[in-house]
């Protein structure tokens, strides 16, 4: 439970960004009129981009947690492309970009350089999309983990290679339509039984800190960034960031869709220390997976021309498994 939740405040609880009745230090970093806006206006992300939102949430919190001393290392992907078309940059912090697949290695290098210079006050955040992280960058990332390099690596998971036109990645969920998993044939969309969970892979490295979050849970996300920044060594944060373009959702629905991913159980939100799950965010208003799937055009083939109850049931089983495995259901008092 974070401090904000202990305050007996029932008007908005601690779920909204701010709260005029809370002491300013108990409000979210995002509600601060003087927040750092690490990613500033004028970037070319789509309307309602979850990745742009998530990156600002994370980096503003990281800067707050480290007195503004953060260097960011970015993999290739939307986040890099929409923020830095020459000669403009949206970044208001030191920021490096090298390649699609090597961001974790570059971040390790920056951390090593800082160590050599004795600058332990300056912290390193590596970041990339799901393609850059779970696929092409995985070797570098695994190395960064096993060496326990002093980097917080953040994956902004929009569940496909969005920048190059929505191709399937290792984080694309089963049945989702992408450019490379078309909605055709008996089993349309991405296949069942493929793909991987990078949070679980990270946990297998037994690094100090692994956590998941979404752009629908600002308070939770910020608390996790602060916790991670309070530690040293390799840390990993996996943030679900809906993509209106790739998912086929209205731009105003980005946060709602992320919330439904959480509330359906399809995206478990948890925290793990040294490879053990230590906390989960309970589901507050549970919904069937259908409520999450239906508004997204990438799942349209599950509903037209006929409703694929068999496929939806299979996805529901996956959600139920998450709920059982991570104990996401609210305890029912006897």
């Amino acid at each position: 439970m974070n401090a904000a939740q202990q305050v007996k405040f029932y008007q908005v609880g601690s779920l909204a960004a701010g709260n005029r009745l809370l002491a300013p230090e108990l409000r979210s970093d995002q509600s601060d009129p003087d927040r750092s806006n690490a990613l500033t206006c004028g970037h070319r992300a789509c309307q309602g981009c979850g990745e742009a939102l998530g990156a600002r949430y994370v980096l503003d919190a990281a800067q707050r947690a480290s007195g503004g001393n953060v260097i960011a290392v970015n993999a290739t992907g939307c986040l890099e492309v929409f923020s830095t078309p020459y000669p403009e940059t949206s970044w208001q912090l030191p920021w490096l970009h090298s390649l699609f697949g090597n961001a974790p290695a570059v971040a390790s290098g920056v951390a090593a350089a800082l160590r050599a210079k004795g600058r332990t006050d300056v912290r390193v955040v590596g970041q990339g999309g799901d393609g850059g992280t779970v696929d092409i960058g995985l070797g570098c990332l695994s190395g960064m983990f096993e060496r326990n390099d002093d980097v917080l690596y953040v994956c902004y998971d929009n569940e496909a290679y969005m920048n190059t036109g929505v191709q399937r990645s290792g984080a694309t969920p089963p049945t989702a339509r992408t450019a490379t998993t078309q909605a055709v044939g008996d089993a349309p969309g991405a296949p069942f039984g493929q793909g991987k969970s990078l949070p679980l892979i990270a946990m297998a490295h037994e690094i100090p800190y692994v956590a998941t979050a979404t752009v629908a849970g600002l308070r939770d996300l910020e608390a996790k960034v602060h916790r991670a920044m309070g530690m040293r060594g390799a840390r990993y944060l996996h943030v679900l960031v809906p993509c209106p373009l790739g998912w086929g959702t209205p731009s105003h629905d980005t946060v709602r869709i992320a919330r439904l991913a959480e509330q359906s159980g399809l995206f478990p939100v948890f925290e793990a220390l040294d490879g053990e799950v230590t906390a989960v965010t309970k589901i507050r208003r549970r919904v069937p997976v259908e409520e999450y799937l239906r508004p997204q055009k990438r799942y349209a083939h599950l509903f037209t021309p006929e409703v694929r109850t068999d496929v939806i049931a299979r996805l529901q089983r996956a959600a139920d498994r998450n709920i059982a495995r991570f104990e996401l259901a609210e305890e029912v008092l006897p």
Partner: protein
Amino acid sequence: MKEKPFAITLDVGSSLANRTGAWRTERPEYVHRLPPCNGACPAGENIQQWLFHAESGDYESAWRELMRDNPLPAVMGRICYHPCEAACNRVQVDDAVGINAVECFLGDEAIRHGWTLEAPQATSGKRVLVIGSGPAGLSAAYHLRLLGHEVTIREAQDRPGGMMRYGIPRYRLPREVLEAEIDRVLALGIALELGARVDDVLAAQRDGGFDAVFLAVGAGIGRRAYIPAGDSARILDAVTLLGGMEGEGPPLLGRKVAVYGGGNTAMDAARTARRLGATDAVVVYRRTRDRMPAHDEEVTEALEEGVRMKWLSTIKHADGGRITIERMELDETGFPQPTGEFEELDADTVVLALGQDSDLSLVEDVPDLAVDHGTVQVADGLMTGHPGVFAGGDMVPAERTATVAVGHGKKAARHIDAYLRGTSYRPGPKHDPAAFDRLNTWYYADAPASVRPRLELARRVSTFDEVVQGLDESTALFEARRCMSCGNCFECDNCYGVCPDNAITKLGPGKGFAIDLDYCKGCGLCVAECPSGAMDMIPEE
């Protein structure tokens, strides 16, 4: 060209040069909507706004906001039937916000701390006569006085308050509370003449040199129904019984009392009878419980206190300590029809609670003033057909509650004020409703409603102590904070936080937010994630 660091060949620029606002086809805007509670309050209180102050523990500001519309919060917090709560959007989440309980708390705080209002000088030079000191008359006098007029109230009884004193029993409205709030109204410099029945309104206006009159004589005559009765039958009406409670000795009723009627007055009469020592108090009503005009809460409280109910029954005859009742049956239209089956019941007294009529003798000779079905006809601005003579409360066609009466008093005051200034009063345009489907309730923490404590049952049937008690400070605060601020910004910062383009600027406490249209792409996230529905998307031209 500027000197560049080693290995840097290009100048950097900021993306602020890229005005992404040009992408927009719709823009967000901040709006105010009418919360359903406000819309349903007969006194027109700005409930959402006074709860906003109460939420921060600033009870005095909350009370002052409430007092802009209603001069009797401690009374209302006890006897109002709170249609606001029935309309409250929170009903669709868990339970209504306990608006009435918080109102009561604020009213009591004001009495405890002695908060008062400054009256302006009576500068208008106009004088208004208010006839009747019930809630309608008191409210009109209060608002007229605050608008700068000189006001005199004439009251036939020897104490002010109307039905709040001579109808509503003390166990629902302690008289200290009533006195305190009436005294505060009068302290604004309103003249009250007691025992001053007005028999001819135009004569009174002329003789006293009044520029306008507000009639608020209520409906104080208990309706009698013809019941064949023997000589020894004791029959009285509920208004006489309840009014008698304010006199020297309480009325003598006997051990067994039958109350005839199914409204709130019947409940009050039966519950009063229990407290006066009746071992058996029976309400005889010709329809069923769900068709009773009495509010469910009052019926429940009466039943808890041992009042018995005879539904589907009419009284056919009364004599010598016994009554004959006939069983009724509802026909398809829900109308009760006699069945020819009879039953006898012991009853030392029969109390008639069959409604009240107004004594309108004082307006008999007023030209152009129309009376229809025993009520005075008024136009939208509550003026009767006779210029300068206004009327409100129970004597005009409307729902007969104290809160409606207070609302009439306020409305009439505004129109009288305009009349006296030779203008006409036009209320500002109403905001569109803050419907439930505009809210994003995810952000409101789960918080079940608080319950007002009740006096223990033994003391309820033996004393006239107050039954429904107030909330303590922390519970009142909790209850206020359950409000979702429907349709009005409460500074949760969600819009500011959730914009992927940093296009919203926070202007500081109480100052709201600004949208930077140079960068707003019109995604609509701020609007979708606004908990209270205080934003709209509107198409760009």
